[in-house]
């Protein structure tokens, strides 16, 4: 137990609910984020199940009742599903939960650089979330998470309130990013050079740069939208001489890089998992680390690939398509590196590794369909159809969510000092993985057939595949229920976890499980890279 006072760890060091709400400990803040983000995930998930239930049949189908009376309610649920999952689950997901907890541990620091700012960013997220949830009890909002003008100017729903909520949550994201950048530069343990940092840290670092640079653009855009609605300033509203397409440019200038806010940390986790469970040094450390930075940089110049049919000029579309192809390369490199890491390794099929392999599987499909969508002539057909819906779910759910789950199972012993039931964890994987493919693969086909997205109702020809997709959504739900059980059961009945149950080499495994308040009993001194399995 080292020599911390009474063998106290960060969980037992202080007692009472207030000690959590006022904590400055990055680990406790990580747990706060965990609880809140998982609650949001529950709400967003229920919304998704409702949407899928409505789409089980086309509306004139005999004998099957409708879930929603009319398109309005469906459109609202669709908007909440998207907005909650993007702004409240996937964006804060990995950086705020696992990043908060493990970034300082992995670089041998006592905490993040600005602990108070860290707590403030949690409160920002909660304030924004509270406001967002409040809109559900007003006129709600029905614009889709993209808030496209001029619809968002004309609709009578609570757009302004929701936009302010997203603005406040954006603050949270910026503060977290800022904190991470400074932490990485200033608080590394002796000997922890940049090139000895774990790849998860590199990924968080690249993500943080995007968070700090891109989020303000979203913030300004959303404020302009609110101003347009309240004062009619005439930027986006064509009736006042504004340009509605300008909004799309602003919006995607943030929201495309945001895709990498969502996926880079996931890639970081996968690098950790593949190396640990293959017990092998990561193949091409430098390539992976710098490809994260490369992706972060290029991601700012590809936003127009969401707008090939918006009326943007042919030349612009061409340039954006070209640049998008370039971002594909570093992503492909990472995939090859992970697989090369497994070559001649010693591979353990623990649940985190299953999730990592699930990630590679789904992300490969998400990636190749991304290239299809980046191709000008093909996107004209696929844009705004279910093909796109399937693609980004493969990337974001198949990618980010798989990585969160894998990372969470991986670090669970460290976070709580207990082991979970491995069988239950694997069972949850099987349900989520199979359910995911059953839900989303048919949507690629629906998209090729031409089914548009955000449709409350559809032509009868699309019904069979929609039914399969809906059944898949139930399998995913079961998978997550099992995962929830695994976590609760692990917390209550779990066996005591050793300090380093997986035999990993990164720093967080050298301290006790759970770690003491100041993370390490002695300041660690680093003499080698993070994956030295010799």
């Amino acid at each position, binding site marked *: 137990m080292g020599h911390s006072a009474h063998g106290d760890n960060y969980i037992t060091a202080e007692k009472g609910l207030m000690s959590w709400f006022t904590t400055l400990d990055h680990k406790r803040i990580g747990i706060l984020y965990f609880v809140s983000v998982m609650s949001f995930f529950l709400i967003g998930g229920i919304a998704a199940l409702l949407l899928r239930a409505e789409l089980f049949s086309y509306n004139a189908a005999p004998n099957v009742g409708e879930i929603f009376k*009319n*398109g*309005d309610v469906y*459109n609202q649920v669709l908007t909440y599903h998207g907005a909650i999952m993007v702004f409240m689950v996937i964006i804060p997901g990995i950086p705020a939960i696992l990043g908060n907890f493990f970034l300082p541990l992995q670089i041998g620091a006592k905490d993040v650089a600005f602990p108070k700012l860290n707590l403030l960013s949690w409160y920002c997220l909660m304030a924004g979330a509270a406001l967002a949830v409040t809109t559900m009890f007003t006129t709600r909002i029905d614009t*889709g998470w993209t808030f*496209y003008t*001029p*619809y968002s100017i004309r609709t009578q729903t609570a757009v302004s309130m929701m936009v302010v909520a997203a603005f406040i949550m954006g603050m949270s994201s910026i503060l977290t990013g800022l904190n991470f950048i400074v932490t990485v530069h200033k608080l590394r343990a002796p000997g922890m050079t940049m090139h000895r940092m774990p790849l998860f840290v590199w990924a968080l670092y690249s993500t943080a740069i995007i968070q700090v640079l891109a989020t303000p653009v979203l913030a300004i855009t959303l404020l302009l939208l609110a101003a347009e609605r309240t004062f009619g300033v005439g930027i986006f509203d*064509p*009736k006042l001489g504004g*340009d*509605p397409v300008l909004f799309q440019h602003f919006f995607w200038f943030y929201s495309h890089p945001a895709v990498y806010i969502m996926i880079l940390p996931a890639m970081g986790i996968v690098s950790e998992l593949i190396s640990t469970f*293959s*017990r*092998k*040094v990561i*193949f*091409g*450390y430098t*390539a992976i680390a710098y490809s994260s930075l490369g992706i972060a940089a290029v991601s700012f110049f590809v936003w127009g690939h969401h707008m090939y*049919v918006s*009326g943007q000029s*042919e030349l612009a579309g*061409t340039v954006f398509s*070209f640049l998008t*192809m370039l971002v*594909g*390369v570093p992503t*492909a*490199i990472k995939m*090859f*590196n992970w*697989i*090369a890491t*497994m*070559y*001649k*390794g*010693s591979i353990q*099929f623990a649940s985190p590794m299953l999730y990592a392999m699930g990630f*590679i*599987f789904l992300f*490969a499909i998400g990636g*190749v369909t991304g*290239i299809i969508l*980046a*191709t*000008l*002539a*093909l996107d*004209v*057909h696929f*844009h*705004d*159809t279910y093909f796109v819906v399937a693609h980004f779910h493969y990337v974001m759910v198949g990618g980010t969510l798989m990585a969160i789950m894998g990372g969470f199972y991986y670090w669970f012993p460290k976070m709580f000092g207990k082991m979970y039931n491995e069988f239950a964890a694997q069972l949850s994987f099987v349900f989520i993985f199979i359910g995911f493919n059953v839900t989303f693969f048919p949507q690629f086909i629906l998209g090729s*057939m*031409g089914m*548009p997205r955000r449709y409350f109702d*559809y032509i009868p020809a699309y019904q069979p595949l929609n039914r399969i997709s809906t059944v898949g959504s139930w399998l995913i739900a079961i998978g997550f229920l099992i995962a929830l059980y695994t976590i609760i059961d692990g917390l209550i009945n779990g066996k005591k976890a050793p300090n380093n149950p997986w035999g990993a080499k990164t720093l967080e495994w050298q301290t006790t499980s759970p770690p003491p308040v100041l993370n390490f009993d002695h300041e660690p001194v680093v003499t080698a890279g993070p994956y030295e399995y*010799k």
Partner: protein
Amino acid sequence: MLLWIIKNQLFKVLVGQAEAQSFMPAQGSEIAKSVDSLYSFLLIVSLIACVIVIGGMIFFAIKYKRKSDNDKTAYISHDTRLEILWSVIPLVIFLFVFAWGWVIYHEMRTMPKDALEIQVMGQQWNWTAEYKNGVKSGEIVIPVNRDVKLILSSSDVIHSLYIPTFRIKQDAVPGRYTALSLKAEGTGEFHIFCTEFCGTSHSGMMTKLRVLSQADFDKWLAEEGDSASLPLAERGKKLFNIKCTACHYANEDKPKIGPSLQHLFGQENHPVESGVIKVVDENYIRESILYPQAQIAKGYGPRSAMTAFQGQLSEKEVTSLIEFIKTLK
């Protein structure tokens, strides 16, 4: 040589196979065919890539499964040659695909010179095609084998006109014109969807593309153009079917997005948000169409969801609509 033929044939068969399995809708034009060949090519490349990545992963996972806790593993930190190879190969493929996609896109976006021009306006939640001779139609009717240019506009929010059979799509943006060109290879009826989210009945904003032979098309256009000879109420009915049925039932007494218009004309003490209308007459209906905000039907406040048709309908058209609504007994 032989090898080349085999490879070439194999490629053709594969692409043909992929096309057959790709679930794309029927091919309505040359462009649709070129889009599909590119798609099939990409499907094959994607499949190969997935087999390499996923197959490789599964193969290694099984082959190097942990046998004991003291397994020795190789120490391979990088391999510059390999890394360059697997960066360059995807890059080359991506650029090739980019160029191919661009060529077809350029063809799509190049507007033919002497095409038949049709104005298509999107509005929550219907499409109106307007021809040079003033004919308005809810369906887009075009002749076969002739270049057609659809000039898109919108009177309210952004819509997007999508014809899957022709693999084409373009947003209709308020305040500016955009365009689509197509040349149908065969006659028939094809789906048109709106693919840009536009509110309550976004998914109901569908119509048909009807491709007729040149003779049939000319006949249709002439007949429609002749509507001046039709009784006023008949003309009103046609217009109503284009512009109003997305939100109103005419022959059923139940609400859609707006109230049913059956039994409306002549009604006494008709309830509106601000009180009652003594008798529903021509003026009330006229006002309801042109300035819906002025009097809002009971239960539909505080702001009317109806499109204001002021400036969009001619005096004659409004009169014809009123005449039609009068007949809804």
